[in-house]
């Protein structure tokens, strides 16, 4: 390196000059006072600091100074190299000399968001040289510094850094044990930070509008789902930032009820409910349904409602209550958590029960419902829609549409 050559040359000169000066002294000559360049008060300062001065800033200060008596005779020198994690050299200087009596000083600011987290390092050589007798001082050499910069992180509910899943219920609020919100905590991981006044941020990266944030300026925030994921994938991501230095993305799945499937069915003759059903006859077809989510997992009890919108007569209906009969007992809301009129519990941990019932509580229906007998005489059909996450009939997330049909001796869906 040219600088080393230069320094070597000065060292050689220094040796010779000092030696000759010493020989004069040895021979009893008066030491020429004008060749003196230092005394005990002459101080040489090597300044070198590698400091995190912001969430996204690493500051490197380096310099060389001389003070005290004879300071005006000293040239100051520094060479240095600063490296990012992975040994990428960010700044280097092969050597700079100041004029006599002047300091040499450099300062750099770099962003971990550009160079990444990890260990930053710097090394510098400092020298002060007095030309009056060719003598060099090397204050603090070599100066080696390192600084560990940790990336911000996010802690999801229950701990860990994700991935994480919570619910989207079609814009309906938290229902039963299906939260549409999640509290995330950002960890700035600033370590020792000189003068830091970090600005925190939260933002969506993948599908940025899929969640909203209760706060985008504090270390904790509540995410609220605004839409569902496209499937059994973590297709939504968010990050926590500190002065623009971003955490790793937290991958999120916004799960949602997507379907309803018939698990099993059962047929009951002469159902209870009338004063004398065995006289008038009728049936109760029982359908056990389960709902499933984006991951095709059966859902634990979730408030679900049923609506029947369009009724179609499939035969001539005369007297009786076939038409628009709610008395037949279609359960319309299923929930384990809501009580009150028209609310029915789920049949078990994952299924709810729906009925198609027709029974004569009084004579005179045309055609009359009868006990199951293998007949194929349709009377009436209706659309049957199931909506999850809300009690109001017809509202919530649509999970399936059926056509249910009443026959004289049984019901189907």
């Amino acid at each position, binding site marked *: 390196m040219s600088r080393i050559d230069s320094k070597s040359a000065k060292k050689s000169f220094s040796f010779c000059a000092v030696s000759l000066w010493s020989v004069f002294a040895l021979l009893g000559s008066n030491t020429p006072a004008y060749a003196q360049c230092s005394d*005990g008060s002459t101080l040489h300062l090597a300044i070198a600091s590698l400091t995190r001065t912001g969430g996204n800033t690493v500051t490197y*200060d380096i310099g060389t100074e001389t003070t005290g008596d004879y300071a005006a005779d000293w040239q100051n020198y520094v060479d240095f190299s600063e490296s990012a994690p992975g040994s990428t050299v960010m700044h280097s200087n092969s050597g700079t000399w100041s004029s006599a009596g002047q300091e040499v000083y450099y300062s750099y600011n770099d962003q971990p968001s550009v160079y990444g987290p990890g260990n930053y390092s710097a090394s510098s050589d400092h020298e002060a040289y007095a030309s009056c007798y060719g003598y060099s001082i090397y*204050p*603090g050499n070599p100066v080696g510094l390192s600084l560990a910069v940790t990336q911000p992180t996010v802690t999801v509910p229950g701990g860990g850094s994700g991935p994480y899943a919570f619910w989207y219920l079609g814009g309906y609020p938290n229902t039963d044990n299906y939260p549409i919100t999640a509290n995330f905590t950002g960890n700035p991981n600033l370590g020792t930070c000189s*003068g830091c006044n970090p600005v925190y941020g939260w933002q969506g990266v993948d599908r940025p509008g899929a969640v909203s944030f209760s706060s985008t300026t504090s270390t904790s925030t509540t995410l609220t789902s605004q839409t569902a994921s496209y499937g059994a994938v973590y297709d939504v991501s968010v990050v926590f930032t500190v002065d623009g230095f971003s955490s790793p993305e937290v991958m999120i799945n916004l799960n949602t009820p997507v379907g309803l499937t018939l698990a099993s069915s059962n047929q009951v003759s002469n159902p209870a409910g009338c004063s004398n059903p065995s006289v008038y006859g009728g049936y109760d077809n029982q359908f056990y349904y389960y709902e499933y989510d984006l991951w095709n997992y059966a859902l634990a009890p979730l408030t679900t409602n049923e609506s029947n919108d369009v009724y179609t007569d499939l035969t001539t209906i005369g007297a009786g209550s076939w038409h628009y009969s709610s008395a037949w007992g279609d359960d319309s809301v299923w929930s384990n958590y809501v009580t009150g009129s028209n609310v029915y519990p789920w049949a078990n941990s994952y299924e709810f029960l729906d009925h198609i019932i027709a029974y004569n509580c009084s004579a005179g229906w045309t055609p009359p419902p009868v006990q199951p007998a293998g007949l194929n005489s349709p009377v009436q059909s209706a659309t049957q829609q199931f909506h999850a996450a809300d009690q109001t009939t017809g509202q919530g997330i649509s999970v399936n549409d059926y056509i249910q049909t009443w026959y004289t001796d049984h019901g189907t869906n």
Partner: protein
Amino acid sequence: MFISFHRRAASVPGSWAGMSCGASRSLRIAIVASLLFSAALSSQNQREIASPSEVTDSLSIAFLHQIQRYAAADTQTKARYARRLGVAESELPGIFAVARQFASAEQSLMAEARAYRERQNSLNQPLNLDRVKGFAASRYTLARTAVASLQNRLSAASYSALQRFLTTEFPRSVSIWK
């Protein structure tokens, strides 16, 4: 304060084997002896060690140079530096002005000191040690005055914070070769 002091005598640069100006082995031995002897002679008229206040003043000088360096930085860097010092951003111009005034006066002083040496050299005249010490003392006075004048420009809290920086964080980054 975490200032590392180094004794100059322990680290005279260069290695004997690597140097050459045509001296024989015996001459080299003589030179070593002469070095020791001359050091003993010269020490009679020299101060042995900088006083603690001079060390403090030296740090102040380096600190004022650092401030001056940051005066030329961009707005964001300045704001960060203000936070680092613990002062309000609005107080930075005053701090920079003090550093600038110091630098200007210091530059004149050092130029005068150099001119004095050059003049003495050209006349082949010895340096007047009192005068040499005078330059150093004046420089320290300039630094002390500059730091003291910050007290008038800053709020009490800011000045206190700045003093804290100067006496704790800043010295940690400085190695002093004494």
